[in-house]
């Protein structure tokens, strides 16, 4: 893994640390217990490193990303970014954080304002940080170039672009302020297979060029394996397993991760038949284990 050596991802101080994080959403109705979305989350991301978060729908992986961004309420625990506690950052602190902490969302159709031109979408974060329009315009050109979009895109609306192109606009917006960490929330799930490959290449290239860190959320174990240095597996709002990507995504220890790995089909009939049998054996074994009183 040459890239890790490049930026020394394995060493150095943590960029982002989440410790003991709980997120609860109050439910409507008198004296109802709040809904617990996350329980006791502990993760960290080093500079230049990608932490993959994998889990199924409702596992809380998206909520964790949103909590880091300040879009989900932190009930307990702390989120530390570059040594500062940002668990309850104010809007003004968030504005300052916006320079170093950015986001790419899943849905390229709703993450760009349909009534704004690409140019003003990309200039928005620059304007917030007080850049002059002329500076912003120059930077926008640079950004479009960086994600491989033509410079005439500036005056066009999002709907004139395909899903993959829009996702690249979203990536350019995240890159605008040269952040240190980008939270990527299922950024390739809505894309076709070949477009996904293009966008994943772009993510890797940007990391090599700029040394940015990713918190990369996905439901797809293959995607997470491909792009992450380390992987954390989420299940029912908790992290059940985390470690180096090749370990967690190839020989997992937790029963849930094992199930997840064997459930994802491979593109060859015979290998898939074998994987299917492995999965059935695993499920039987896990069922037995659950039933037996000794392990409990």
């Amino acid at each position: 893994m040459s890239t890790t050596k490049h930026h020394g991802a394995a060493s150095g101080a943590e960029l982002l640390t989440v410790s003991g994080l709980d997120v609860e959403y109050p439910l409507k109705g008198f004296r109802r217990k709040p809904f617990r979305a996350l329980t006791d989350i502990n993760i960290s991301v080093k500079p230049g490193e990608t932490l993959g978060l994998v889990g199924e729908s409702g596992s809380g992986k998206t909520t964790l990303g949103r909590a880091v961004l300040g879009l989900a309420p932190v009930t307990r625990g702390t989120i530390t970014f570059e040594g500062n506690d940002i668990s309850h950052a104010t809007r003004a602190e968030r504005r300052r954080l916006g320079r170093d902490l950015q986001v790419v969302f899943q849905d390229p159709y709703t993450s760009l304002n349909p009534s704004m031109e690409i140019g003003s979408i990309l200039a928005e974060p620059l304007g917030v940080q007080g850049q002059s329009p002329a500076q912003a315009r120059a930077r926008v050109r640079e950004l479009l170039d960086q994600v491989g979009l033509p410079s005439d895109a500036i005056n066009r609306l999002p709907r004139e672009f395909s899903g993959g192109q829009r996702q690249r606009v979203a990536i350019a917006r995240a890159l605008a302020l040269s952040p240190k960490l980008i939270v990527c929330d299922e950024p390739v799930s809505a894309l076709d297979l070949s477009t996904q490959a293009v966008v994943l290449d772009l993510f890797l290239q940007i990391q090599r060029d700029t040394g940015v860190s990713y918190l990369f959320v996905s439901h797809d174990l293959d995607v997470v394996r491909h792009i992450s240095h380390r992987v954390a597996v989420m299940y029912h709002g908790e992290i059940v397993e985390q470690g180096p990507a090749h370990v967690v995504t190839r020989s997992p220890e937790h029963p849930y991760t094992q199930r997840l790995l064997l459930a994802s089909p491979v593109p060859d009939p015979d290998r898939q038949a074998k994987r299917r049998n492995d999965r059935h054996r695993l499920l039987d074994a896990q069922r037995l284990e659950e039933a037996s009183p000794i392990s409990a």
Partner: protein
Amino acid sequence: MSVPVELVGQSGTVVRSNVIKKILKNPLGLSAVVVLLFMVVLAVLANVLTSFDPNFANIGKTLASGDAVNLLGTDSVGRDVWSRLVFGARTTLLSALLCAAVAIAIGLPSGLVAGYYGGKFDGVSNWLVNVLMSLPGIIVLLTVRAALGPSVWLSMVAFGILMAPGYFRLTRTAVQSVRNELYVDAARVAGLSDTAIMSRHIFSVVRAPIIIQTAVICGVAIAIQSGLEFLGLGDPSVATWGVMLNEGFKNIYLSPLLLVWPALAIGLTIGALVLLANAIRDALEDAEKIKAPKRGGNTAQASLATVRRRPDRTFSAVVEAGTEHHLVKVSHLGVGYPQADGSIKKVVDDVSFHVDRGEVLGIVGESGSGKSQTAFSILGLLPDAARIVGGSIQFDGKYTVAPTDDRVSQTRLSEYRGKRISYIPQEPMSNLDPAFTIGYQLVTPMMRVLKISKSEATKRALKLLDDVGIRFPEKTFEAYPHEVSGGMAQRVLIAGAISCEPDLIIADEPTTALDVTVQADVLDLVRDLQKRLGVGVILVTHNFGVVADLCDRVAVMQNGRLVEDGDVRDILRNPKDPYTQKLLSSMLEDKEPMTMLVSAGMPAAQAAARNDERDEKEMAR
């Protein structure tokens, strides 16, 4: 290959100069604008256009018909009708604007705040809106008049308050729909303040509906105000159209024309406002429709009528000899959508394949490849606008689409659909009717298709639910769709698909909406059922893993064409077509992590740009 540009989840609309142009191009919109401008000119130039004070009464000349002095004649006390009509325009238009202004001033800000922040303010304002909306307008206005006197302006302020809920609701719903849009989240992450978010991202969404609503409200205000004055409750010293109507109605036997002028003015003005609102709406919707990229699809220039005939009911051509044994045979199928300019956009082009009994065929492709359209033409469930532009489909030795049909014959297909051909959809939740229990939705097709009694159908439904691995069949039978999980709902839909013992099941991305562990379970279920029942299956998917798991043969589609088909092992292991190769090379399974997938030897941005170019070329082909 890129995702075709679809308008998914877009709620924003842009008010631009081209919208104004479109309104003026629309004849109805243009005439509305002309009428309104005319009324405005009357109102503004009232002093210049008339030679009498609207209240000047010439007792010597009452109920006169029009002449050179009194253009439109005089009323029962000798006042000049033309002057009154013109000054009436001024009062009426101003009061309508006042009403709308009051309504906007109250409704818009409160709607923005209630929609964006929710909470207590939202609760209280909703209650107030309920109160206001339970009030019959005229009765309130009568009361207001009793309390505060017969002023046009006061009653319009009161009516404005009554109309405010309209704006409030409109704004609130619009704001709520975008409040959680991802682009608003992105703006929050960028550190935009709430006011900046509201003015930049949220106000732009409500702007267009507000303009439309205002045109409508002005019309309503004019109607209500005239109505009140017609009742004789207006301010008699102010000339308005309503007062003139009242005057005219009193003298309806003597001089019916007195009634015609104000009625005409009211009808024209309100009509113009309504038409204007419609024209704005159409112009905005039009702007949305142009989203389809010009490069989309292969446009066949041939006019439809010359190529295909409508389906002939009596036509029952025999299929080509030697092909009767195929369960389904699709030959040179073309499906297209007629465009506004008379051309046809082809989404399926010259596609041929066949499926035999007990065989599983996978149709693989990315979005826009035409794989679903192909499947739906076998089911006869294409959208109304779709046309068969070529080829034929035969099922069990008989044509369902004969070589000359331009549409799928519903009469021919209704013999098979639900009975011998069945369907498993992609999105489990949206494919069950939320208003009926799961049991009902399983039982009814069996009663209709198999002509069995309700109790027998119920018995079979419970058995089916058990067969598809649902643990508590009775409970699920009684449940409504929203009470079960996505995986369960998909099992229910599979149960529905096999309920009438079909020969062919068409499954359109049956596992795409499911979590991967649930997907594995559902694939197991489909495989078991297919083996047990010996049915033929057409599986539409974008996932080669799913293909490898289930299929005997594969057909790969791209941009409406079939690029390659054959045995599953041959295609997956030794793909011949470059597109299939590209798709398979995009698979991440078995790849060295952190390596470039498509941009070997060049920067990823360059590779991406090159990919875009190739897409455009392919789409234009």
